[in-house]
């Protein structure tokens, strides 16, 4: 299995595609950070705001990237005709998927490490860095990784990588709807329901309660429950999808 993990990392992390994504993300971070820092006279409150915005941008971009990463991993192999050979080896289907999951984890580990210096710069002069990083690794990354795992599950179920990507994007848009709505609009039935259940909304709420309202552990935990549930659901979905993995693919 370790050789397959190496292959996944080479294909998706240290490949031209992977390095290009890391590069693009660093440029983006630098641009954001520069524009924030160049705003003079940052009050402490404004600095909290800046860090929240940066975190939101990081999570939003990462979810999109994670969808692209996850949704091509299996259907891509199916389309290029390499999945059949993998399934013919003595490796179990679950292990084939697991190697891809490790690839995804390494990918996000690198992105999170890239973001650390930027957070260092943005939180400079405050004691927020530890909170921000804890949030990043405990809530932000699990959320992003859940989207990767779900996209991977879709890509296992659905034979076409285009359709798998589409489904993941629809899921992201639905869960992200509350972010675009005003507080009053969120009061309406459907939007309210989505807002309550959406892991994306929950992650934002957690960020606010942790960083701004500085609530205690119990409240933060309750806030983040949808994220943790979402992670659990995506793991279960992926597990079942991997058992059903078929090189012909079925809708």
């Amino acid at each position, binding site marked *: 299995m*370790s050789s397959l993990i190496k*292959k996944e990392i080479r294909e998706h992390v240290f490949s031209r595609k992977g390095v290009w994504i890391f590069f693009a993300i660093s440029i983006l971070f630098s641009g954001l950070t520069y524009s924030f820092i160049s705003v003079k006279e940052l009050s402490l409150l404004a600095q909290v705001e800046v860090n929240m915005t940066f975190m939101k941008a990081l999570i939003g971009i990462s979810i999109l990237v994670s969808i692209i990463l996850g949704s091509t991993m299996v259907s891509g192999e199916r389309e290029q*005709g390499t999945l*059949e*050979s993998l*399934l013919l080896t*003595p490796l179990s289907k679950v292990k084939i998927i697991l190697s891809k999951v490790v690839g995804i984890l390494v990918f996000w580990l690198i992105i999170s490490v890239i973001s650390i210096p930027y957070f260092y710069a943005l939180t400079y002069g405050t004691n927020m860095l530890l909170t921000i990083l804890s949030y990043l690794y405990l809530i932000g990354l699990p959320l992003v990784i859940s989207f990767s795992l779900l996209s991977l599950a879709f890509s296992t179920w659905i034979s076409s990588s285009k359709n798998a990507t589409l489904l993941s994007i629809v899921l992201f848009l639905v869960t992200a709807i509350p972010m675009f709505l005003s507080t009053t609009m969120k009061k309406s039935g459907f939007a309210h329901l989505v807002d309550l259940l959406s892991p994306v909304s929950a992650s934002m709420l957690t960020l606010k309660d942790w960083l701004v309202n500085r609530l205690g552990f119990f409240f933060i935990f309750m806030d983040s429950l949808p994220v943790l549930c979402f992670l659990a659901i995506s793991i279960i979905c992926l597990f079942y999808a991997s058992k059903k993995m*078929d090189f012909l693919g079925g809708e």
Partner: protein
Amino acid sequence: MIKATNLTKQYDNGFVAVDSLNLQVNKGDIYGFLGPNGAGKTTTIRMLNGLIEPSDGSVTIEEKEVKSENALVSKLIGVLPESHGYYNWMTGREYLKLFAELYGVDKKRIKSRVEEVLEWVGMAGKADILIGQYSRGMRQRIGIAKTIVHEPSIIFLDEPTLGLDPQGQKDIQSIITRLNQEQNVTVFITSHLLKEISEICNRVAIVKQGKLLEEGYLDELIKGYRLVLRNENPTLEDIFFSLTTDEVGGSI
């Protein structure tokens, strides 16, 4: 030995691609599996490999049930699928090394085994070029090298010479016969080149619309068809057409 009993595949859309097939391939055979397009050859191979589940019937390979002992069986067999894809970003050597590892070849043996199979398929000089830059013939050779890298005792080749030039076809044929003679590998092969099959196979089966029409040792078949075809020396092609072509002047 491969033994299939009452093998049947009905796809989800209701189409019966393989219909109660019984066949047995003995150790040391080069077994040619013939039939027109859509006869169910690839479907049969996939069931024999355990890649798709039969709707009915069972397969054993070396006395092991393919369905229940899948991991064990997969080490005994090597498969070159019909539409075989490659990781274009790997070199031929890296590709073989990956599969040697996935098949659990002894770590200390991997390096030398990869060199061995590269020699076998005549790709030793081109092993460090990216597969994306290989020609079709080179890909097919690397594919065969992958098929045998873990020293399987039975190999399945689904149209291994498809799209190759005459020299390429000859080369692949001689690799197959050498594997069979020198390494005692049992070969299950499909091809539309009847001449190729009659040159390398000792036994053949002919299928059409999922049903087995004829099976046997090639020389015995030829003897048997002398009378039927009123031909002193019928070729495999004559037999094939007499079985698979619909009666002329029938229901047109």
